[in-house]
Structure formats: C-alpha cells, structure tokens
C-alpha cells in the first residue's frame, strides 16, 4: 500500500484509539445505548394498570374482572366508584385503559342477551393505548363467550402465523436496527469531526502542503472510519446474536459486504459535512441536523410506505433505509442474494456520490 496513505490512515486511527479514554468513548456508550434502548424500546404493552368502574355485582362481572386481573399485560386493577373518579385517573395518566361495566351486565349474560361493556383508552398515549385496548377487548370477548356457554371457545376465524418472528418479539426488530443507527451515528461523528478538527487546529494546512492528494486525504479519512464502523457494527451484531438471542438466518458475507457499503455511504455524508464546516462545533451540529431526519425517514420508527409520497422518494436518499432492509432481512428473513443486491446498489450510488463530492470539496479548498 502507498506509504503516504498508510501514514494518514494510521494517524487517523491513532487519534481515536491512542488513549484509553477516547477508545472507551467510541465503543462504550454505543454498547450501553444498545443495551438500555433495546430493553426500553418495546411496543409490547405490559404492566398496565386498569381502572374499573363496576356497577354490577353479579357473577358475570366477577368472572370478567378475575380474568382481566389474570391477564399477563395487566399489572393492577384499580377499582373506582364513579365516572368522575375514573375520568380523573385517566386525565392524570394514572391508568392507560379503563373499563366500565354497567349494572345490567351479569343479568344480560345470564339471560343470554348481549351484554355491554365500555372500555376506554388514553388517546394521548395512542399506540400503547390502542394495543392495550385490543388486548382488553379480546379478554372481554373471550369471557363473554365462556360465560354464556353458547359456542364455548369459538374457533378463531383466522389462523395467524407470523413468519420470521413467530412470537413477534420486538427485540428481534429493535436490536439489529439500533445497531445500524448507532453505527451510523458514530461513523458520522468520527468523520465529520476529522477534517473540521484539523482545520481548527491548523494541521489541515500541514496536510495540504504535503504531497498527499485530495483523493488520498479523503481515503485517509474514510478508511479509519470504515474500520471503526465495521468493528463497532460487528461487536453489536455479536451482542445481538449472543446476548439478545436474535436469530441470524441470512448470509454473513453478504451482510458484511452491505455493512461496508453502508458505512462508506455514511462516511461520504460525514466528509461532506466536515469539509463544509469551519469548526468542530458546526460539524457536530451539522451531524445532528442530518442524522435525526435520516433516522426518522428510514423506516425505523414507522414503515416507509406509510409516509407521504414525497417523503418516500426522499427516503431513497437515506442510506439507513436501504441498510435496515438488508440487516432485518439478513437476521430474520434469510434474505436471498438477489434481494440484498437490490438494496445494495442504492447504497453504492449514495456512497459514490457523497465520496466524490467530498473529494471535489477538499480539492476546491486547495484552490
């Protein structure tokens, strides 16, 4: 390898890895974040407190409440004695869902008449409210069926099978995605700071008077970030497989190849930010301004296809969007090579565009 290039790569790596503290800052926080946020980010609803306003003293409501109390998502039943009290509990966010059993509930069931129950959820916590509500409704429907004795245990209308993740374990979704996001953030920050720092400390001039060409300078910044990103992503993937027990069904070489192209495309973005910014502070804020929207339109929080059309087009420019498809596919769906490549080429295009832009900007700075 070219000696000049090698010297730059070694220099860049050392500036992150030489002292133990910055080495730790590179690996420690992302891993910690992976741990905390993987557990925190869950769309399963658990430990729900249910407020119950029961106006019925019959067997039907007793049966219903004991079933609700036994349901796995429920933590505690809070009995209330008036609608006002119930409303207050919901208003003050003490409970997520509430159940109102009218006085004629047991009588209707006993008589074989349709009984009514009212459930309500806090719409401020829309997503979890919705999920909790559907859990609660299904418990009530089941209890109703059992109690009436008619058509006991009705067969489910649809046989549902969840491919790739039979129990819909949310962690299987979040761990690979968080790994990708954290890798992206670190790779962005590392590259965005690299040129801006040299410019602020005056070493960039020193580099520009050396025989290193703009292309070499960009490669010299790119390779170390690539190495750091690959190591970090690998560590996180290993943690995902070994620690979080996320199954891996795809091809390791293909995922590795995609990872490299993904990081290259991110590094390209980081270098463009870095070569535009004058100070490290601007570079950091620039990374924020770019990274946050990139994450939001990547399909991590919600599927891309739910977005307005214009944003769906914009999402094509987000490297994270394409990589998330590959990484989820590789972990869970045994994504075939043809599909990997279908999502890989947009990444390659982004990488090519941003990296050449970085070279052009560095060269222009020289003039």
């Amino acid at each position, binding site marked *: 390898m070219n000696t000049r290039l090698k010297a730059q790569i070694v220099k860049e790596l050392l500036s992150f890895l030489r002292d133990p503290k910055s080495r730790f*800052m590179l690996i420690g926080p992302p891993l*910690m*974040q992976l741990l*905390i946020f993987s*557990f925190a980010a*869950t*769309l*399963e*609803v658990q*430990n*729900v407190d249910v407020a119950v306003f029961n106006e019925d003293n019959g067997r039907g409501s007793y049966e219903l409440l004991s079933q609700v109390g036994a349901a796995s998502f429920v933590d505690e039943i809070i009995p209330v004695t008036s609608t006002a009290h119930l409303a207050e509990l919901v208003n*003050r966010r003490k409970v*997520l869902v509430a159940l109102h059993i009218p006085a004629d509930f047991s009588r209707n*069931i006993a008589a074989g008449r*349709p*009984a*009514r*129950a*009212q*459930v*309500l959820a806090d*719409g*401020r*916590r*829309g*997503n*979890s409210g919705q999920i909790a509500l559907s859990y609660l*409704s299904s418990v009530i*429907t089941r209890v109703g069926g059992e109690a009436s004795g008619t058509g006991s245990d009705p*067969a489910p*209308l*649809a*046989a*549902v*099978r969840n*491919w*790739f*993740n*039979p129990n819909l374990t*949310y962690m299987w*979704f979040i761990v690979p995605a968080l790994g990708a996001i954290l890798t992206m953030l670190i790779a962005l920050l590392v590259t965005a*700071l690299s040129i801006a720092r040299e410019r602020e400390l005056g070493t960039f001039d020193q580099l520009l008077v050396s025989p290193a060409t703009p292309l070499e300078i960009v490669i010299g910044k790119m390779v170390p970030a690539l190495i750091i990103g690959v190591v970090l992503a690998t560590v996180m993937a290993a943690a995902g497989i070994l620690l979080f027990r996320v199954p891996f069904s795809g091809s390791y070489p293909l995922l590795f190849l995609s990872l490299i192209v993904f990081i290259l495309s991110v590094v390209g973005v980081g270098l463009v930010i870095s070569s535009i910014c004058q100070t490290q*502070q601007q570079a*950091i*804020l*620039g990374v924020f*301004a770019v990274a946050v*929207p990139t994450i*939001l*339109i990547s399909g991590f*929080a*919600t*599927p891309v*296809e739910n977005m307005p059309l214009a*944003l769906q087009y914009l999402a094509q420019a987000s490297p994270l969007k394409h990589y998330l*498809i590959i990484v*989820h*596919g590789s972990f869970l769906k045994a*994504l075939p090579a043809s*599909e990997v490549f279908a999502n890989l080429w947009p990444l390659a295009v982004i990488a090519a565009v941003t990296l050449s832009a970085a070279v052009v900007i560095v060269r222009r700075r020289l003039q």
Partner: protein
Amino acid sequence: MSTSPARTSLSPRRVFALARKEALQIIRDPSAVLIAFVLPVILLFLFAYAVSLDVRAVRIGLVVESDAAGARELAAAFSGTRYFEITPARDRREVATRLVAGELRGFVVIPQDFDKRLLARSGGSLIQVITDGSQPNTANFVSNYAQGVIQTWLGSRAGAVQPQVAVEQRFWFNPELESRRFLVPGAIAIVMTMIGTLLTALVIAREWERGTMEAVMSTPALAIEILLAKLLPYFVLGLVTTLGCALLSIGVFGLPLEGSWFALLAISCAFLVPALGQGLLISAVTRNQFIAAQAALLSGFLPAFLLSGFLFEIDSMPLPIQWLTSIVPARYFVASLQTVFLAGDVWPQFMVNMLAMLAIGTVFFVVASKKTRKTLD
C-alpha cells in the same frame, strides 16, 4: 479605597449586557440558527407526516384459492377496506417471495375449501393470515385488522350470531387515534432538549476555548451574573421556539390546544430548568467539544427520544429502565405537553411533573456550580 456595595450585588444591567451579547452571537452563528430555527421545523414536519403510527393501506397479498361465492365475497370485503392495499394472487408462492423482499407486509389466504369451512363452522379456522414478523408492529396490525375484516364480513351476513359481549371502544382525547397528535408534542420535547442541552453545552465550551471567559471574569461581573446571562438567552430562545412549534402544530398540523397557553408556558419554563442545567453541567465537566457532544447525545437527545414515553410506553419497560426514566426530564415534559394539547389543564398532573423537573434541574445546577467555581485554578 473601598468598593461601593453596588458592585458586589447582582446588577441587572450587567446581566442584560451579557445576555444581549449572547443573543447577538446566537443570531450570527449559522449553526445555532440551524439548530434553533430550521431543525425544529423539519423535525415537527417529519413527526407530523413521516413518523406516522397510524397504519393505513398496508400492502398485503390476497391469495384466493377458491372461486366459490363466499370466497369471492370475502375477497371483495378485503379489497374494500381502507386499511389494506391488496395485491391479488392465485398462488401463495407468488406473494411469499414478495413478503421476503419486504414489498408486502403479509398475506391472507382464502383456502380452496373456504365455503365448505364456512358452512361447517366447527373447529378449524376459515382463513390463514401470514405476517412479516420482522416488523412486529405492522405484523400485529395486519393480523388484527384481517381478523376484523372477516368478523365484520361474517356479522354482515344474514343470520349471523350476535356476539355475547359487545365491547364499546373509546379513545379519549384522540378519538381518531391520529399518531400525529401524540407524536408532535414529543417532537417539541426533543427540539427543546437540543436547544437547552446541546447548544448550551457547546456554547460554553467555546467560550473557554476562545479565552473570552477569562476577560469577562476579570471584570466586576459576578460569576452568578455570567452564568445567568449565559442561560437567559437560551431560556428565551427555548420559549420562543416552543411557542413557534406550538403555533405550527396548531395552525399547520391541526393539533388542538385543549389546555391554556399559560399552562403550556409554565410547563415549558419548568422543563428549561433541567435542560439548561444539564447543558451547563456537561460544559462544566468537560471543555472538549467532542466529549460534550457525545455526552449531550447520550444523556440528552437519545433519552428524550427513547425514554420519554412518547414512542415507547414507560410502564412496559423493565423495572431498572423505568427507574432510569424517572431522572429523564423529558419524560415529565412529554406527558404534560400531551395533556395540555389534547386533554386540557390538568393541574394536579402538571404540578407533580413540574416539581419533578424543577427538582432534577436544581440538582444539575448545584453540581454544575460546584464544578464551575474552581475553573481557572
């Protein structure tokens, strides 16, 4: 000679002078303008339109293996719902590959013997629903709504058996369950965290780096004045941004403001205390911008995003993480904001949340001022 007593007491004029300087610096720094004015608009826009948890028109496959009347009716019911966008197929292998590719989020199979099963109606299920479990949220949605479609279809048929218990479902404060309504207040919390914590942390670090802190400290200005003047403009900036965000949310994104503007302001003021305190603390502990940014990212931005309860339910998190969220100021802010926008003025809740935020803020300020005092030595 002796000094006049006026010099040792807090001088509003000096605080004002320093605050004015800070304000000028904010306006003249393009990156600060970007974070304080441009990014909030982009973020709100994305949370209102891009991050939508309301699932509409999910693309699913519909494999109709039977040509019988019942099967065709059900197929029509699936095609008719606004929740799904149907890709019809005759063979499940066609849609299975598209499911792997991520083009479809699931598929429904109406089997060859559907009409026979419908008549018998004992034991087995009528249809099969296959979902893409790699997207658990969407998968849940697909299976729930597919079941809903068939249930409704069955109910609409002549001679259908009425269910034993009719469950009436209500969503308070957000009857249509638009995710924008609860996501946008969360986005405001994120924006405020960025201004309060990230910007403040970086700006103070810069003051040390450029040596201007030293010059100001040699004037009669008291340490408390310098600190106060540093925070005041960001406090105002935070409030202005909140108000701007609120106006945008109400005017453009169609959010209601059920509560009062006064409550909104009070909550925002209470949140700015811990947010600014955190920024101050970070800058007092490190003067290195990279570490300051990392710290702000780790302790401010990401918790506001993931641990504040606006995307993920706090009650569902493991207990240690629930404890952790209790020191995330954004948690209290998000809850109060959602209430003031969607529910109204629930002062008991506001008071508890505001107290929590002020308490956290006080801790930050006490620690920060302990760390700041020794700075030049």
